[in-house]
């Protein structure tokens, strides 16, 4: 006896097999039994009602999640290619005094700020007041942090202070032997490729500052609100 016939005989009682209704039901059941069995079949309401349990990897939410995760990647790739093309074909050939350079920087800043406002609505992790209070506690040394974090913060503060301090010294000295940081970078941005690469890096940094570090939108993936969400 084939497995298909065995399944049919097990689920249909022999006393009802002669009725016309049962014949119709048996046909339906036979059709259902032609589906490949996965081991996840279960009786829901009786012997004639069967539901094939969906495989774990093919549920609707999971499928949507897979497709959704590709969209940001594609948007990022297309935008990155566009920024690179713009940088090398247009911005790299501009000079600092040109109207085109002023316009491209102004438009980039405007686009990033508008994108930050639109994409970040209701997705900041902390209210500004809380963040400011935390910053005050950190500056006054009243913040509770572990020694490793304190060491890292001190190291970064010392390095950034050295960068700013040396730039200030060079600016005030105004000597040929002491170039400022912008003059050093200016040596790179004098060339077409250098200006294009630095401009593309500047746009990438601005995009991250405008759009990065957001809380997850409420119910986006799990249906539960993000605890750090600030609307």
């Amino acid at each position: 006896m084939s497995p298909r016939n065995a399944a049919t005989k097990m689920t249909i009682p022999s006393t009802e097999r002669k009725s016309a209704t049962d014949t119709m039901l048996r046909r339906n059941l036979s059709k259902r039994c032609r589906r490949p069995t996965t081991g996840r079949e279960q009786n829901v309401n009786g012997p004639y009602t069967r539901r094939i349990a969906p495989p774990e990897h093919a549920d609707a939410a999971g499928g949507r999640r897979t497709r959704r995760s590709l969209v940001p990647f594609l948007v990022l790739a297309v935008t990155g290619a566009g920024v690179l093309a713009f940088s090398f074909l247009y911005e790299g050939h501009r000079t600092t005094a040109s109207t085109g350079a002023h316009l491209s920087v102004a438009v980039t800043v405007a686009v990033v700020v508008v994108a930050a406002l639109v994409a970040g609505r209701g997705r900041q992790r902390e209210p500004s007041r809380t963040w400011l209070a935390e910053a005050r506690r950190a500056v006054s040394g009243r913040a509770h942090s572990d020694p490793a974090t304190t060491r890292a913060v001190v190291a970064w503060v010392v390095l950034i202070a050295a960068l700013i301090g040396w730039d200030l010294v060079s600016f005030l000295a105004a000597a040929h032997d002491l170039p400022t940081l912008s003059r050093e970078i200016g040596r790179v941005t004098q060339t077409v490729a250098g200006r294009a690469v630095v401009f593309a890096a500047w746009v990438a940094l601005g995009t991250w500052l405008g759009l990065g570090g957001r809380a997850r939108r409420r119910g986006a993936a799990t249906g539960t609100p993000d605890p750090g969400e600030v609307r």
Partner: protein
Amino acid sequence: VTAGDVVWAVLAAALVAMVVISLVLGPSRMPGIAQVAGWFLRSWLGRFLALAAWAGAGWHLFCQRP
């Protein structure tokens, strides 16, 4: 190569070393530049301070300096 160039090279090397150390040790033991910048992005105020610095740097680099 001037004396100022040497100082800038040393500072750049220190910056790269800090980034590498933070990558090797991980953010829990040594927060990197991304974690420091990410702290600014937690609130609107911090984000706009960072964006203002970014916009100022861009204007200075691409519209003022040669």
